[in-house]
Structures are given as structure tokens and as C-alpha cells.
């Protein structure tokens, strides 16, 4: 088999460039295999994050030919090999070195979210159908590709006012948990800026876990916020039931 040509970003926060490498192709090879080959043969200090190499940990995110992907699941035989394959770090986050970016902002956002809070005297029984809905959200492997592609973060740099798709998915998982008793609509509206999302579905398209981020998480959460703040009937019912904030 012929060699594949790569152009890989080498550099840090201050400067960097695309560097050419060549890698022999093996059957079934993925881009992460090629990066490991380059480390072992050409560039021992090439910085790459990875762990499971099986699409389960969400560590090896990068932009392959400009598209946010898990490199461990990006097959070389699915890419055009006439031109070099470019591999660059996720653009939304500050580069640390080469393909490794500073994703600490995500961990800071996560800390703002109140945890699962069961009501008093809960009976720990749940129907599989109710669980199914939430399990979809809990498939998230925190690869942060949805955060990377989201134009509110990527182009408009609204990290201060906006939580991003990953954390809407996390909140959806808590809000729709059959036994959770807390409402997080205030947080969604005021601190995590869910209103800034104009449902272009870019996040859903890049999700390696096929989570229907927009349809199943963001839109229902937007509806909750609308119901909470702008629906007089819901406002009245809430006064009667007194759901906790």
C-alpha cells in the first residue's frame, strides 16, 4: 500500500505551523494510529491526548481535514488520500502544544451545575422507558467536539455567558432523571445562556455517540425555560406545587 501524507500542526500558544509527515498505510488504520506511528518514528515529542483508542473515553479529539473528530474513530480509508490529511487541534480551545488544547474551561462550567438531587422519601423504582430517555444523555464521553464546533463558542467566543451543548446535555440528563427534584432553569437561562443557541444542529452532527443533542436535549430545555419564565399557567402551577430552585 502507498504512504499517506499528513500535515500536522506543531507548535504552541504563541506560534506554530503545519509540518509534513509520511506514514505507511495498514488495513483498517485510523488517524490516531498514524499519529502514534509519527511519534515512534519521526517526532517523539508530538503531543497528542488519547486513552482507550476505542471511542469510549473521548480524549483524542482533533480537527481532521477541518472537521472535529475523534482520531481513534476516523478511518484512513474514509479520507481522500490524494491530498495530505491535515490534523489540527480543536480551534475553540487554547493550544497547549501540537494537538493538545486547554479544555479546563469545560471543567469550570461543569462545577456550576447543581448535582442530582432526589426528593425526600423517594422510592428507588424507575421504568425502563423513563430511564431510556436519560441514558441517551449519559452516553456522553466528554470529547468536547460539540463545544468545539458550536459557533457561539467557536466564532463568538461567548464562553463567559454560554455553557455549550455538552452541558445542556448534562443538565438534560439531570432535569429528566425520573427521581430528580431540582429545577435548573434559572441556571440555564441566566448563567449558561441557552437562549444564545439558535439550533443549527452542528453539535448533533459531530457527536461521536450519536446523541440527538439539539432535538432531545437543547429544545426541550429551551421549552422548560420558556414555560418557567413566560407561561402564566405553569407559573401558577409551580406556585401551588413549589418545585425547588
Amino acid at each position, binding site marked *: 500500500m502507498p504512504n499517506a501524507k499528513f500535515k500536522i500542526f506543531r507548535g504552541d500558544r504563541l506560534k506554530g505551523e503545519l509540518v509534513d509527515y509520511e506514514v505507511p498505510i495498514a488495513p483498517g488504520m485510523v488517524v490516531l494510529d498514524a499519529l502514534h506511528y509519527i511519534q515512534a518514528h519521526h517526532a517523539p515529542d508530538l503531543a497528542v491526548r488519547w*486513552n482507550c*483508542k476505542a471511542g469510549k*473515553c473521548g*480524549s483524542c479529539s482533533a480537527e481532521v481535514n477541518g472537521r472535529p473528530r475523534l482520531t481513534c474513530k476516523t478511518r484512513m480509508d474514509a479520507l481522500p488520500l490524494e491530498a495530505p490529511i491535515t490534523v489540527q487541534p480543536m480551534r475553540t480551545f487554547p493550544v497547549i502544544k501540537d494537538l493538545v488544547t486547554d479544555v479546563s474551561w469545560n471543567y469550570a462550567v461543569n462545577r456550576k451545575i447543581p448535582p442530582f438531587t432526589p426528593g425526600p422519601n423517594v422510592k428507588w423504582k424507575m421504568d425502563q422507558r423513563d430511564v431510556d430517555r436519560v441514558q441517551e444523555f449519559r452516553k456522553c464521553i466528554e470529547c468536547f467536539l460539540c463545544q468545539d464546533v458550536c459557533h457561539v463558542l467557536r466564532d463568538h467566543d461567548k464562553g463567559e455567558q454560554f455553557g455549550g451543548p455538552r452541558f445542556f446535555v448534562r443538565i438534560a440528563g439531570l432535569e429528566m432523571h425520573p427521581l430528580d427534584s431540582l429545577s435548573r432553569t434559572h441556571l440555564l437561562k441566566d448563567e449558561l445562556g441557552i437562549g444564545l443557541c439558535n439550533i443549527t444542529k452542528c453539535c448533533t452532527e459531530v457527536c461521536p455517540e450519536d446523541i440527538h443533542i439539539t432535538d432531545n436535549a437543547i429544545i426541550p430545555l429551551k421549552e422548560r425555560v420558556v414555560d418557567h419564565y413566560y407561561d402564566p399557567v405553569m407559573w401558577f402551577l409551580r406556585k401551588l406545587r413549589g418545585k425547588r430552585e
Partner: protein
Amino acid sequence: MNEKFETHEHDVLIIGAGGAGLRAAIAALGQGARVAVVCKSLLGKAHTVMAEGGIAAAMANVDPADDWRTHFRDTMRGGKFLNNWRMAQIHAQEAPERVTELEQWGALFDRTRDGEILQRAFGGHTFKRLCHVGDRTGLEMIRTLQDRGVHLGIDVYMECAITRLLKDETRVVGALGYWRETGRFVVFKAKSVVIATGGIGKAWRITSNSWEYTGDGMALAYEAGAELMDMEFVQFHPTGMVWPPGVQGILVTEAVRGEGGVLRNKDGERFMERYDPEKMELSTRDVVARAIYTEAKEGRGTEHGGAYLDISHKPAEYVKRKLPSMYHQFRELADVDITQGPMEVGPTCHYMMGGIRVEAESAQTSVPGLFAAGEAAAGLHGSNRLGGNSLSDLLVFGRRAGQAASEHANQAGPLNIDAQQVEEGARAMLESFEKPTGESPYELHRDLQETMHSYVGIFRNEPDLKKGLEELQTLKERAARVRVEGSRLFNPGWHLAQDLKSMLIVSEAVAMSALERQESRGAHSRIDYPDYAETWGKQNNIIQREAQQMKLKQLPIAEMPEELKQIVEGDK
């Protein structure tokens, strides 16, 4: 002191942020300790995330006859009675409570029709016992623990690696490490240290383990004077992917067999009939791994040297619902639709039964101030671990280690960090930069993996093991000549050079113990000693450092109390 080095002070320092480390952190926090967790990767990426099949706990939701006694008996039988029986007892008794607790912290398990936690069958378990979330149970567990821990206020030092434990006279009082991002050194001062660093699979060529699994914790403990136990028992999981080459070793969950998957050789024969006609595909892992290996070796393997594992007789929708990540893994990485045809599978280095010797109740090692839990600790699983018992192990003994570490911290008194140890440790880490020429860490790693695979693999014999030990000596000499290029800024070659030191220590311990144990038991199969030996059933191999040398001795296993004996000998 040590103003040169960034220093952090905590009551309890936990090394490793998988299930055991995070559960230990939550327990220690619960007792009011100031807790730090240090991990080589980002938080939430530890190997626990790869666990698929489930958590074994005798909840009796599906099979009402199940109870801790049966779980205890299964664990002891699976481990061929080499287990620390007290650990096996505590584990079986406490696992259900630990699962319930996870649910109360927000984990969402699959449900029974009555709305209880659903449990599935698994190899070696008498009853349906594994609480699960499809085939991504580990992800559910780590996310639940991670969110809980962060909410409670653990300090997490991510992408930070520990290279040396620091001692004050006889006790452990902290650790030296480096930030992967900047390469700068960092000192942790702590009254107790918990090792929860997982296993050693990266020393073998075909493995289901991630890059982190380099035996760091065991090597750190060994160098600090702690004992390593049962190091010869390395579990090869029967079913890893075998094709294409890049995915070789990636785990195929035992849940495929738990859900009814069958194994066949290239002639279409369901060969487990010849190895374990009673339990068939749900025999213990050691037996199934050897069966697949033997079929391939004797010419009945698949095109790529494995066996066929087939679940396609089940309805496609069922397979996709119960084994979603397997479905995607094969479709995306191997172009195989598992709802339509068989997978090709073969053994892959998966789990370390051996590790740091600890007290059953407290996870305390033989060195004061040092604790260990999870895969890094030895004892619970004996010579072979049952599937599902690792996740429960992490929860049960992670919690106990966290509690004991925080209690120890309360009584520890003032500590002294020895500047000389810090300086020495820092200097050792920089040596590989200073060489004008030398070995590539990547090449050395490849050769180590090849050595362990060829000479210390599934089937062993004396000439191979001796040859393996010789090769390891050569590799150690080469390791002293490793040269690293580039700067200290996020430099994987340099990081690997550090990890290699740990891998070489644990590899030698494995080979030495394997040579010594002249019998076959559980995961340790000696071609030259194919049977059980009664004497070896009554003793553990112990490795310890004495005068800079690796020394091996045997320790007798304590007599089991009468009431446990009765349980073990009871009906199947």
C-alpha cells in the same frame, strides 16, 4: 523547605482517578479530610471508563436466591482459593450497598420490569448478578463518582504524574511528580497516600489497556518498601478484537456471551463443549482464553488467528439495545455488523490480579501511611478474577481505603519532607534529556511488549520464563541509556521514558513470580506443570525490595474460619 518546587499540602493524597481513587476521595472527604486526587489523564478518562459488562453485586433483583454467600463462593472458586478470603467476604457483603449508593448519587442502571436494577449473567457467577448500563457501565460509574467528588470539593490535579513516593523515616509522607503540560516538578505533602493507579497491561503487546496502565503505583509502592503479591496472575481476557491490526486487543465485552453469544472455530464447531461442557461460553476467563488460544494454535482458528463470537441469532434490535457500543465498535472499526454475522476475537492482556499487598479491612500496605485499592492492590481475586468483580472491588475497597487513609491522617502528627529525596527524584527524571545519543523510548517499549508477550504470556514454561528474565535484564540496561528529544513541554517521549521504569519493575516481578510457581492455577498456566500443586494452593508469592535487589518469598495463606469453609464447600 523546597521553595524551589511547587508544593501542595493535603491530608490524603490519592494517586489515580478511576473508580477506586474517586471512591476513596469521596470517603475521605466524608470524614472531613482535605483530599487531593492526582491523575495522569484528564478527569473522567481513567480506564474504568472502558469497563463494559457490569458491577457484580448480590442484589437478588433477578434471581431471588442470590446472596452474599453465593457471591463469596463464586469469587473464591473463580480465584481457585488463592484469594484473601476476608477480602472476598467483605466484597460480597458490601457490594450491594455500594451499588445502591451509586444509584442515589444519580447513576441510572438498566431496569427490571418491576423498576429495580436489572442484573445479567456473567462467567463464573451462579446467578444473574451484574448491574449494568447496556455495555457502558464503567462510563456511568466514573461519571457518577466524578460529579459527586467534584461537587463535594476534591482538589483534582489533572495530567500530573507521580514518579516517587517521599518518606520520613519509615512512613510515606508525600510524593514527587511532574505536570505533563509544562514538565515542571510538583511536590505533594500528605499524611496518607492512597495508590489507585490500576494495572500493568501496557507491558504486553496485545492489550485492552490504555497508555496509562504502566504499573506506576505498584512500582512506587515497591520502591517505597511495600510488598507485591501474586504478581504471576495476569488475566488475559478471552475476547479482544483481532482485526484490523490497529484495533488488535481492544476489548469485546463478556456481556456478548452473557447475552447469549456463542464461540465457534473455523470449522463451525462450538468448541467450548470440549473445554467446559457445563458452563460453555460462560466458563471463567482463564478457561475461555486458553480454549481460544489452543484452537488457534492447533490450526482451527479464524483467518486472523482467533475464534468467531456470534450474537447474530438474537434480534438485531435487542443486540443494538443491550450491546450498543460493541455494535458501533465493530461497524466503525472493523466493517462488521454484529447483528448479521460473527466477530473475530482472541485473548488480550486485560487485568492484573496481583499487586500491592494490603490488609483486607483497611487497604493498608506494609508501609505506614501507604494504602492501595482497586486493580493496583492484590488479594480479592486470587488467581483469576470473575467479570464484574472489578467494578465492585473499586467501590468496596476504594471506600475502605479512603476511610482508613483519613483516619490515619488524623493521627499522623507533623511530617517532614526530605529535600534530598526530592532533588534526587527530580534529577533522575531529567537524565534522559542529557544524553547526546541513546535508545528511543518507543523502541524500548515495543521490545518490552514483545518480550512479555513471547515469554510471559498465556502459556508459560521454565525455559521461556528464564529467557524472559534475561531479556528483561538487557532491557533494564538499555533503559538506563534512554534518550529523550525536545523540551519538557507536553512531551510524550519523555513521559514514556518515566513510565518505562515502572513497567520494567512490574514485568520483572511478574516473570520472577511466574517462574517460582511450579503449578498451573487460574490465569497462571505452566505447560511444564499443568496441574494444581497442593503446597502452592496454600501460599502467596511475595516480592519485596531488599538492599536494592528484588527478592521473592512465600507467605502462607491464613486458615479460613469454619463458617466460611462451609459456604465454600456448600452446594453449587
